[in-house]
């Protein structure tokens, strides 16, 4: 008996019949909990009566670390939160500190940031698509997705030398100028990528089994989503057209035209559709931005030692998974007094119980996948 997986309700004999309930622990070591999430399911047969997400297996105290590092030193740490979207994390942090300093990155830096962040969004969504499909049993899309993600990571590698935890941006702008051929490579990727999305779509969108496994599964109504503070594609799939890129533009998003994809019913299929459409939109943003990267400096003049004035700031961006917010309190020293991160995965995960109740064990896997959590970000 793998005792870590089985707990019986004390005093009650447990059966699979529904005479009473069994408690099944999925994780923290389970192939489809996306890392070390542990979900405690109270089952009636295979039907979920109640669920509880138990987190913290990947806690590293990122927020505490910030208090003992200078502002620049802490920047690489944020890459390790949502490690499949490190560029977005970096963007949020850098902009938050810039806001604290009252500085702004030059326009060229902001455009390059936008391009890289949108590429990162595509990469993050590709990881989500691949693993989500894998969870539901489609073995092949993950390889297609990683094939394209590889192209994006190559661009990152050429730009800043790292693939996963990139530390691509610096407070005040960029450290590196774009490399020769950057525009062409991004453009080629974006042009090719259109057909690639269609390829994934062919595999899944109208596949009867896929539709059967995702439609009507894990429904989250708009009211619930807002009440739970859910953001990002999960919120938009419930029909709420809320996107920080539009609502509170940052970087260079106000320069480009793009749409906020939404879907009406808030089920797993809708979230799939929304994310697929977001990849298309990101591709369009990249194409617009790459056409015209303004010339100019890439770094604002902010000095070598950062000493923001005392005060506090909250800055949030639309990370691939939702609203990624940084709340930074400065006491006027070179180190932040307090950094608090609002990670989208952590908040979105709170909707899990609402989605999972009444569904089957197999759906739980689909629901975990559709929230698109990264445990590095949930646990920090």
């Amino acid at each position, binding site marked *: 008996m793998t005792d870590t997986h089985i707990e019986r309700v004390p005093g009650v*004999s447990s*059966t*699979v*019949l*529904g005479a009473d309930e069994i408690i099944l622990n999925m994780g923290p070591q389970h192939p489809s909990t996306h890392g070390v999430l542990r979900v405690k399911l109270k089952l009636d047969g295979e039907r979920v009566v109640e669920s509880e997400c138990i987190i913290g297996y990947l806690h590293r105290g990122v927020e505490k670390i910030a208090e003992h590092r200078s502002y620049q030193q802490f920047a690489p740490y944020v890459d390790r939160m949502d490690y499949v979207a490190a560029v977005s994390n970096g963007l949020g942090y850098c902009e938050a500190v810039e806001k604290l300093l009252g500085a702004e990155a030059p326009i060229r830096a902001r455009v390059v940031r936008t391009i890289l962040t949108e590429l990162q969004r595509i990469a993050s969504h590709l990881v989500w698509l691949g693993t989500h499909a894998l969870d539901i049993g489609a073995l092949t899309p993950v390889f297609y997705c990683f094939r394209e993600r590889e192209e994006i990571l190559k661009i990152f590698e050429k730009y800043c030398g790292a693939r996963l935890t990139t530390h691509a941006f610096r407070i005040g702008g960029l450290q590196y100028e774009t490399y020769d051929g950057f525009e062409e490579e991004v453009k080629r990727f974006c042009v090719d990528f259109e057909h690639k999305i269609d390829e994934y779509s062919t595999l899944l969108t109208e596949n009867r089994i896929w539709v059967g496994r995702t439609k009507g599964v894990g429904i989250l109504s708009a009211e619930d989503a807002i009440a739970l503070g859910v953001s990002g594609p999960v919120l938009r799939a419930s029909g709420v057209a809320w996107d920080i890129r539009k609502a509170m533009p940052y970087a260079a998003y106000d320069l480009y035209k793009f749409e906020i994809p939404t879907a009406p019913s808030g089920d797993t299929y809708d979230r799939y559709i929304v994310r697929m459409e977001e990849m298309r939109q990101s591709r369009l943003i990249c194409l617009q931005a790459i056409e015209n990267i303004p010339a100019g400096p890439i770094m604002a003049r902010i000095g070598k030692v950062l000493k923001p004035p005392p005060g506090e700031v909250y800055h949030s961006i639309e990370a691939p998974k939702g609203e990624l917010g940084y709340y930074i309190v400065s006491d006027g020293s070179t180190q932040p007094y307090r950094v608090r991160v609002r990670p989208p995965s952590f908040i979105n995960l709170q909707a899990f119980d609402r989605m999972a109740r009444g569904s089957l064990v197999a759906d739980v896997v689909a629901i975990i996948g559709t929230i698109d959590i990264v445990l590095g970000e949930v646990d920090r």
Partner: protein
Amino acid sequence: MGTAPIALQYGFFYFFAGLAILCAILMVCGRNVVHSAIFLIGSLLATAGIYLQLTAEFLFIVQVILYVGGIMVLFVFVIMLVNLDVASRQRQFNKQVWLAVLLTIVLGGELGLMTHVDGSIFNSVNAPQALPANTNEVATALFQTYMLPFEIASIMLLVAMVGAVLMAKRRGA
């Protein structure tokens, strides 16, 4: 099989008969219900072997597919559904052992009496008659001579199916 030497036939028979009885005893005495089910499966398979020795090939297949592959799977399934760890630790037998012993004696005595009184009744018409490849004949009998019972049996199965579903269904659902 009909042409097999008689010694081989006896060997087959005693092997399967012994197996059937051994498994049956173990089944009744077993503490764990799953073990009981496994021994019953063994007993049924041994019986299937005896059918084969009796050149009833079709019945052998029916026994294996229906009994072992169907009914017993259902049993094992239900055992797993309701398997209580406590059940195997409780007292397994009730207080009717004396009744069982009595019945055994009566049944054994009855048969012994019959063979004692006229042992020839079973042996008189013992001339083995060739029954080669009887699947066709079984089919003919089943679909022509016994057409009506066959249909009745199918209706009975239908009724049983509906009944089982109703019975096992959750109340109020």
